[in-house]
């Protein structure tokens, strides 16, 4: 028993290394990848559940502004990958009295989420100057005219969106899929 602790530990580790039963690297990778899928799948299912649940309230929220579910105003919630609006989006739009027809018209005109955001920013800037008198018509005709296509301008003018409604649209941050679905619907 004159071996040093280092030697004894090395022998012990050597025994374990020699007798270890390990999977192949490919099997380990497969395991890790599968687990990743399962987790992502679980998260997606959870997200889908939330969106589906929120989707139930979409019709009611848009058709009857102000009527929302109990949890609707708490947080933005997960980004919707489907075309259905989340409870948060529904609430934001409903509070600003944005109708489904208005959003559909905007979507049909090809206005993107980014453009809506830009529009909202510009609107907010203009609102500082003349809050009450501001109409979408003025925005379209003036400040943002150069950024919008004729179809988009027409949609804005036709629907007569107010600054608060544009801000709500920007806040709702509708995805491309949602806008497309609204345009189709």
């Amino acid at each position, binding site marked *: 028993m004159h071996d040093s602790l280092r030697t004894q*530990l090395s022998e012990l580790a050597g025994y374990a290394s020699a007798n270890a039963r390990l999977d192949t690297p490919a099997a380990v990778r497969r395991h890790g990848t599968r687990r990743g899928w399962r987790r992502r799948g679980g998260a997606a299912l959870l997200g889908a559940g939330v969106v589906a649940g929120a989707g139930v309230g979409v019709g009611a929220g848009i058709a009857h502004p102000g009527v929302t579910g109990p949890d609707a105003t708490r947080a933005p919630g997960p980004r919707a990958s489907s075309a259905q609006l989340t409870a948060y989006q529904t609430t934001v739009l409903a509070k600003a009295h944005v109708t489904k027809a208005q959003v559909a018209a905007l979507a049909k005109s090809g206005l993107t989420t980014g453009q809506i955001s830009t529009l909202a920013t510009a609107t907010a800037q203009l609102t500082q100057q003349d809050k009450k008198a501001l109409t979408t018509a003025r925005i379209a005709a003036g400040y943002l005219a150069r950024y919008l296509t004729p179809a988009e301008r027409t949609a804005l003018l036709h629907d007569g969106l107010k600054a608060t409604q544009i801000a709500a649209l920007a806040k709702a941050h509708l995805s491309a899929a949602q806008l497309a679905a609204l345009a189709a619907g």
Partner: protein
Amino acid sequence: MPKADDFDEFYATTSRRLVGQLFAMTGDLTEAEDAVQEAYIRAWQRWPRIRGYQDREAWIRTVAYRISVNAWSKARNRLTAHHRASRHAEQPELSPDLLTLVSALRKIPEPQRRVIVLHHLVGLSIEEIAAETGAPAGTVKARLARGRKALAPLVSDFDEPPSPRIHLAEQNRETIARA
């Protein structure tokens, strides 16, 4: 998609060594295998990040150790008997000296055992152990000293080979006895 070749090579060159180190820390081969394998699975899931680490082996060792400690506390009683029964039939038995060492290591507190293994088996310095375990260098030194002290009566000499004087004294005794 993470690079599979890198990972495979890393796994092939390090996994058995890490099982050995974990076995010395835990005293249970099956547990060490499970913990190391699980650590590699987690490493693969984060491979784009981990492959850039300077000391990937230390990452695996730390993760595997944490897994084994958690698993140990949760499922020790339930699984130990089953593991021992199933493994002893298939694997070569440890020599009496190594069995003594395993038994001795199991008797000292787990943080001391970890430090002892990292220092004497892995060959890390106090500072490196402090970095890996997250404990201050002073604590590492204290654990090392306590661990050695606790092991001293249970196992043979540690770092220093037996001194020539002792050898001579033993030889003299043997000579005297023969005479």
